[in-house]
């Protein structure tokens, strides 16, 4: 896939801007507020210079100047208010955009096949949804308003000064065409500086995170102290290297400083010399008010540009973040279309046949063929075992039947093709227990209720009892309400399996697919769990992948996977005999 830089990067930024524009008035206010504030500044400078002129030259007593002085105060208060409103609007717009982006990404993840998520580092996906999305904020809140201000305000200020003094106006206007040049210069310099800085920062941060991740290993090898020195030396090395880049990169901001200082000094000297009669470039006399007004406006002409330079790296950050997301998600995901319902499922609870023909499955990573043109039949209400050595592809087959994996060939549930069933219908009709069920953070009861949210306690207890969960929860002080998952009680593999089995018992499926439901169980417990499975599966179609002879013996029919084929077995005990030792009992 493309990495999303270059032209793709521009497309991503346009998408981001599009999302931002959708926030409407918020986005508009965040850009307009600094512009209006800038225009009010012109009025404030005019009033201030007027007051000073009247007081110093005209010797007007201060009480007569009360009105313009209050005007100055009012304008400043108004500008503070505008700054607050603008920043708030910008922040809210950015929050809206970020929330939308996060939801789009999360929806996209959920909508994929589990194999898609399994192929990606979960940490990287989480970081994309949480950190990378956060990284676009600076661009929206600071960079965008700063760009608009830098493009408009210097010209507006020059225009405001023009009627007061043509020469100063010309000086500003003369530098105005240079503004795009400045912006390019700022862009180049600021980008180089921020790239240098961010890279140094990221590298050192990355190195630190890397060593921190392996700190136990380093400690056990007695290398921790040496690696602390490596971290410190890497910092020093990076410092020396980036300093070279910075020497040049900071020059661009020095150039801006130079122009800002030149503006103030130039105006001050020109106006001063005009007063002294040493420079005669204008026809009329120059009042103190006009001179002060020009002087007050001089630094403001260059201020928006300097602010843009400060925020320039926000753009690069946002671009890099979007590129990162695009790489992980193979393009920036669009907001998902509402789910399209296809065929409705069979009536819930009714046993449904499973019929797979010409089924070909390949392992996701190694591209090894697991099944090639295989056939599997389970009649309505029939109980079927699938055997085979571990790693041979039993789980892959069950995942395909559960509609959680791509396959070639045809799978039909009842009369309907699996590929044409709606997600909702499919889930109502098919219950599936994976080989390594995940327990979510919460209580055991919460985890079981995943099968049927809001299930009453009586049903919950029945399901927990049937699955053998109560066998270990009865000994716990909080029983089914014991918290599990990270930060809670750690369940063993067998216990986790039983909790996941209880989820299924809360449902009413026509087809039940169980992947090694009795793994990690001792014989007594296994017998109890098998009883539960058989009692629940009465009148339903059941397919289990298993190593257990006891479970296989309780099924009506047995298949074995081997050599890419799915073969019916007449004597399941013989098929199980060369099993490795880990088969239960």
């Amino acid at each position, binding site marked *: 896939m493309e990495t999303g830089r270059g032209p793709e990067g521009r497309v991503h930024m346009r998408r981001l801007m599009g999302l931002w524009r959708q926030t409407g008035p918020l986005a508009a206010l965040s850009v307009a507020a600094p512009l209006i504030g800038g225009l009010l500044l012109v009025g404030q400078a005019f009033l201030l210079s007027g007051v000073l002129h009247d007081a110093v030259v005209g010797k007007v007593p201060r009480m007569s100047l009360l009105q313009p002085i209050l005007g100055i105060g009012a304008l400043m208060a108004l500008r503070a208010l505008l700054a607050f409103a603008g920043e708030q609007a910008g922040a809210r717009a950015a929050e809206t955009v970020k929330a939308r982006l996060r939801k789009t990404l999360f929806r996209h993840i959920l909508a994929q096949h589990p194999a898609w998520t399994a192929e990606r580092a979960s940490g990287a996906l989480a970081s994309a949804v949480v950190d990378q999305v956060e990284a676009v904020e600076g661009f929206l809140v600071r960079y965008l308003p700063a760009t608009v201000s830098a493009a408009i305000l210097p010209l507006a200020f020059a225009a405001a000064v023009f009627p007061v003094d043509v020469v100063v106006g010309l000086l500003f206007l003369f530098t105005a065409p240079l503004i795009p040049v400045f912006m390019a210069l700022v862009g180049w310099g600021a980008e180089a500086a921020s790239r240098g800085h961010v890279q140094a920062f990221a590298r050192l941060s990355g190195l630190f995170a890397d060593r921190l991740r392996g700190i136990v290993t380093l400690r056990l090898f007695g290398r921790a102290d040496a690696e602390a020195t490596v971290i410190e030396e890497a910092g020093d090395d990076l410092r020396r290297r980036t300093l070279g880049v910075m020497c040049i990169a900071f020059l661009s901001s020095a150039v801006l400083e130079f122009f800002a200082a030149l503006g103030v000094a130039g105006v001050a000297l020109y106006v001063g*010399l005009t007063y002294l009669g040493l420079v005669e470039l204008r026809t009329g006399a120059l009042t103190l008010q006009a001179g002060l007004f020009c002087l007050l406006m001089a630094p403001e002409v260059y201020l928006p540009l300097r602010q843009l330079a400060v925020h320039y790296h926000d753009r690069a950050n946002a671009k890099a973040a979007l590129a990162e997301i695009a790489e992980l998600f193979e393009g920036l995901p669009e907001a998902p279309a509402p789910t399209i319902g296809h065929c409705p499922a069979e009536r819930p609870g009714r046993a449904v046949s499973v019929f797979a023909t010409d089924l070909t499955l390949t392992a996701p990573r190694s591209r090894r063929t697991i099944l090639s043109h295989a056939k599997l039949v389970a009649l309505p209400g029939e109980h079927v075992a699938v055997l085979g050595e571990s790693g041979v592809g039993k789980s892959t087959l069950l995942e395909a039947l559960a509609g959680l994996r791509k396959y070639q060939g045809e799978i039909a549930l009842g009369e309907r093709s699996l590929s044409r069933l709606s997600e909702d219908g499919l889930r109502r009709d098919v219950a599936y227990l994976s080989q390594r069920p995940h327990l979510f953070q919460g209580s055991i009861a919460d985890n079981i209720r995943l099968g049927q949210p809001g299930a009453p306690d009586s049903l919950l207890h029945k399901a927990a009892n049937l699955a053998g969960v109560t066998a270990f929860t009865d000994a716990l002080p909080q029983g089914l309400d014991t918290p599990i998952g990270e930060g809670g009680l750690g369940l063993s593999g067998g216990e986790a399996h039983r909790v996941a089995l209880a989820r299924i018992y809360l449902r009413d499926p026509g087809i039940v697919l169980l992947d090694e439901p009795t793994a990690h169980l001792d014989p007594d417990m296994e017998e109890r769990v098998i009883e539960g499975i058989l009692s629940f599966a009465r009148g339903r179609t059941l397919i289990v992948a298993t190593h257990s002879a006891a479970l296989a013996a309780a099924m009506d029919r047995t298949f074995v996977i081997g050599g890419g084929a799915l073969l019916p077995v007449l004597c399941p005990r013989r098929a199980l005999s060369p099993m490795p030792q880990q088969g239960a009992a």
Partner: protein
Amino acid sequence: MNSLSLILHLAGKRTGPFLAALGLSLVTLAAGIALLGVSGWFLTGAALTTAGLAFNLFGPSAMVRGLSLMRIVARYGEKLVGHDATLKLLADLRGWLFRRLVPRVPFQGRLFRRGDLVSRLTADVDALDTVFLTAIGPILTALAAGLAMTSLLAVLLPDAAPIYALGFGCASLALPIALALASQRPGEAATLASAELRMRVLDAIDGHADLRAMGQTESAFRAFSASGRRLTRARTRQSALNALGTAGVQAMGGVTLVGILWQGLEALDTGAVNGPVLVGLLLATLASFEAASLLARGAGRLGAALAAGRRVQALAASEPTILDPARPSALPEGSSVHFEAVRFGHTPDRLVLRDLSLQVRDGERVAIIGPSGCGKSTILHLLLRLSDPEAGAIRVAGQDIRTVTQANLHRRVALLSQDTPVFLGTIRDNLRIGCPDADDDALWGALRAARLDGFVRGLPEELDTWLGEAGRTLSAGQTRRLCLARVLLSGARIVALDEPTSGLDRETEADFLADLAAATRGRTVLLATHASLPDGAVDRVLRVENGRLSPQ
């Protein structure tokens, strides 16, 4: 303010660069204030001299030019020196923290959720090291400039000095501190909400198949959205505070200006001050508030940095759970391992190991099998003293491991853990973690034993191939082999291997285990696994059941 002292303590070690950066930023600020002030004074003075009085043109114009030049040079220097100092602090802080954490890992209890520790610590440290440049430095600079400006006013316009001191003090000290304190709570909330959001994503990814199978993706999405809303709320509060800060500084600037103008005009009426000086002071006041507006931005980060500093400090100051004995004994020669009635549980009411006993002779290879979560890894961790048992004793070469130093123990026993990482660096760097002064022959020997030599020889840069981010990524099997080579290189006589084949496909797993006997020849091996073992891989197989070991 405990965390502030941490920053100052670290900065204190680099006093020179930080003082230089501070000095230069003060010069920059002062030159900026003086430039506008002198210009206003000069301009007004010139305007008043049209009456024909002589005006010394040379002084002011030279000052205007000199100040502009000074400002440019000082700003440039400040950026360069500040960058230099920050990078130094960056490295110092990380090195310091790393050294502090080493004796404290692995952290006992469940303080941190999976993966949280690394990402949170790096984020916290990131928040800490810019705080000097964005908050503390500017506050000190602004205070110095404010003090100078107040003194100047006290001489030239005494009535206005208190107004300025109050206004500027509010804007550059009271407001940033109030902001920093007020932003701590939403900052904390944002950190929590963001961690929660990350947990939701990780939970949904790990349980993706279950969610899909149960048709519950919608409820996962709702939970995610709820966490997202909490994050949005916290961030909105944070940005509201920031906006309040910016607006507050502007308002404070306005009040101060109007106040000084009002007092100044009275002084002008009474002749206590002349026009040019008044104009110069007013313009200088305006310019000085530029420094305060920078502060308001940094203050929000100061709050975050304070919280980050507190967390880092708490971790760095926590008690190490495993301590070396006060008077360590020597570890005798030998590589036997004995567990004597060892009891262990992460929580008191659920024991993982109950009175577990185990004898492994010198050079014996023993596999420990059992379902996941039964305590296989725990046995290996106890052997390396990553935790201590509640009861019973563990002996290496007949010596109780609690009586020898951990460094000695770790030299004798090497662990290939389930999550042993490949570090950023070359293949050589990664191997040498096992033995820092191993020569190339030794490295190749270890790679040969781990059956990775052929692959490495095929790489264009052989041992110097860069691994990790932006470098080459190894397959799961190659990664495990590289980590095994690292363990073999260490010279430890006892090797503990924790699920060395997890994440490998069946063929790679079988190859790996078949090679194991030859690779670990002459060493005692404890192998925790649930893979099926080929003949001859180990001498004995033991199964963990109900917290005890029984022969298979």
